[in-house]
């Protein structure tokens, strides 16, 4: 059974304090590893897709990386507006792109 585990469950940072969120996965025949941002009461917003180990993608203060067992979301010099829940999901060898989601990391950035 495919599994995605995120850590930590919650992370509190001071503005400007860089850190990383972890996503460990056991997904058979991984086809894609996805990161989403979700604000309270809203739907997840797509951030990145990573397809193979060694791949990296960046967007503003965020950088996602992928190994054969884990993905990291690095946040450089975060701002309060980066506060949100960050979700990781894997798509495996099953058809039609079904995703297995992690529980999410709640990030709070204090000014």
């Amino acid at each position, binding site marked *: 059974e495919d599994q995605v585990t995120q850590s930590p469950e919650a992370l509190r940072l001071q503005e400007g304090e860089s850190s990383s969120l972890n996503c460990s996965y056991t997904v058979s025949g991984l086809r894609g590893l996805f990161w989403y941002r979700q604000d309270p009461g809203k*739907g997840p917003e*797509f951030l990145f897709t990573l397809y193979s180990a060694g791949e990296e993608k960046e967007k503003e203060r965020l950088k996602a990386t992928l190994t054969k067992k884990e993905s990291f979301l690095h946040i450089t010099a975060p701002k309060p507006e980066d506060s949100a829940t960050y979700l990781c999901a894997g798509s495996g060898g099953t058809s039609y*792109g079904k995703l297995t989601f992690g529980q999410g990391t709640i990030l709070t950035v204090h000014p």
Partner: protein
Amino acid sequence: DVKVTQSSRYLVKRTGEKVFLECVQDMDHENMFWYRQDPGLGLRLIYFSYDVKMKEKGDIPEGYSVSREKKERFSLILESASTNQTSMYLCASSFGTRGETQYFGPGTRLLVL
């Protein structure tokens, strides 16, 4: 720009009522998905559809049914709403069959009294 819309942001229904949640996407995506999201349980797949009139059960289909008569529209039906179906319902769509990105709608927060 990618667009997935859901018919209601908030909905309050009584136990036993039949409830329809509608999702529309304008990206000509083949695949559409319905999830529910609950604190501590994460996102759980209810049903998905990979083509018009085609549907597959997800992880928690009990108490739900779906309809996809047109490619752009995917409906989730609660035949007889119960209080344990109070939740945030999220619709998503994606293109193709090789793990392409799913794009989500804004969600419907359903309260069953």
